[in-house]
């Protein structure tokens, strides 16, 4: 196959699309005390994902766990899996910075190179930014986590 394709479907992405960290058979649509839930829908393809994120208690919570159910293409499944591995243990500002950079890179049409220190394994998604129609795929779960973590944090702070 072509080199261009291999840039998009990095080995790490294909692996995550199959092993899928954080994916669970259990329904994740109800949130607990220190967790938030977000459902995201991709109108272009009809795929959807539901993500539940739990954070630690206190003023400066960190991410405790990411769990999700959903269906989608390999890019979207891999993006959810990678994030589920990376997020736990991160502070909220760290997570937000990572998501922001991920978004910026993806929207840049290949102009913004990934900062591997910030993105770690998620740098493998750099190739997606040249495939405009697939940017939403990579962002779907990340937007869901962003949304869910904010809900969780505001609960954690008020309890």
């Amino acid at each position, binding site marked *: 196959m072509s080199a261009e*394709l291999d840039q998009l479907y990095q080995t790490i992405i294909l692996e995550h699309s199959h092993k899928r960290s954080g994916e669970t058979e259990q329904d994740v649509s109800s949130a607990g005390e220190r967790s938030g839930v977000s459902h995201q829908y991709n109108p272009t393809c009809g*795929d959807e994902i539901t993500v539940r994120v739990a954070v630690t208690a206190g003023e400066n919570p960190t991410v405790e766990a990411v769990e999700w159910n959903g*269906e989608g*293409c*390999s890019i979207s499944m891999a993006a959810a899996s990678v994030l589920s591995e990376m997020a736990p243990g991160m502070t909220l500002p760290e997570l937000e910075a990572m998501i922001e950079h991920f978004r910026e890179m993806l929207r840049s049409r290949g102009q913004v190179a990934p900062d591997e220190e910030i993105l770690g394994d998620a740098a493998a998604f750099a190739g997606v930014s040249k495939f405009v129609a697939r940017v939403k795929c990579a962002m779907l779960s990340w937007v869901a986590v962003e949304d869910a973590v904010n809900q969780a944090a505001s609960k954690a702070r008020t309890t």
Partner: protein
Amino acid sequence: MTTTPLDNEQVLQLKQDFPLLTETQVAGHPLVYLDTGATSQVPLAVADAERDFTLRHRAAVHRGAHTLAVEATDFFEDARATVSRFVGADPYSLVWTSNATEGLNLLSYAMSNATAGSNGSEHAERFRLGPGDEIVTTQAEHHANLIPWQELAARTGATLRVVPVDERGLITPQAVAATLSERTKLVAFTHVSNVTGAITDVPGVVAEAQKVGALTVLDACQSVPHMPIDFPALGVDFAVFSAHKMLGPTGIGALYGRRELLNALPTFLTGGSMITKVTTEHAQYLDSPVRFEAGTQRISQAVAWAEAVRYLEKIGMDRIEAWEAELGGRLARGITEIDGVRLLGPAPGVERVGLASIDVAGVHAHDVGQLLDVAGIAVRVGHHCAQPLHRELGLTASTRASTYLYNTTDDVDRFLDELSRVRGYFRAEGA
């Protein structure tokens, strides 16, 4: 007289009329365009006809009295005569719309207007709907032939009933009959499915609808471009189709309707050119087709569409149909020979147009499409605006290849060849 289909040599000749098909490179590969189901490509003659009209003959039609305006009106009405003749109809029964979708919405809103008593409803008795009345559509429909009826039901209090497809994804007259009742006012159904390529028995469905006195509306988007069509002979009351799927421009489609029905139907869009007398209180409307053509029309688009029709007629719709049956058969057979790939809809051997959708086990449709795309093969992935049918087939999305008169057997084979590598590339289970 039997029909001789096109052959590869002739098609390669035809391709020369389509710069996009001969000149486009995608990721270093010559383009194989298998997405006509979404929109077709356009031959030089059609683009040139539109440009020429625009640069040398443009004027407002049906309004001006000056020479240029009179000539433009002739161009415009000649185009209507050409396109209506192509579907066996007279010009009075062909209304220009933006696309097929707008044609279906026209009917939906005109029936709301009949119910409300607005928009020239003097003779609109048979279009009125109310609680207890039923509108019938099918599980196989494009959203364009489903949502307008859902909303019509919501606006009037009528009930929407949905005919289930059979195990092959087909709409059968039997299933339609089982959904009809004395209260059914309208049956809207597709001629050719844009997901499975299956062909509906139109006269069979019409016969059932007529038994209960229901109006029939045919979605002919995927049939008119690919086979000879005669709406009066099919017996439908209304039908819609779009120019952009048959070598014509975007921005124009048509609603066919039996003339006496169109003249009795309340108006939809209102404004200039479709009225007789207007006071600040009240407007009176002209007869079909201008009755439904408010404001400045798609003039150059009509002219270009007529040129597209002439191009198709020169080749012969029967020959196009026969050639695409070959391509469709080759597609269907080829697909079923690939491990882990499921052909949606009718099995090989069953009648279909040059269109086939597939599900690749363990690989998402968008990933399938991506792999094909970098090999230069343009196909459609997604739900193809038919979510209910995909749900019925147990899917969210599928991958669709669709042909036209400009596709060769080689195009089909290149698609099949790449398709056979998909599961391996994505390391799908069992690949």
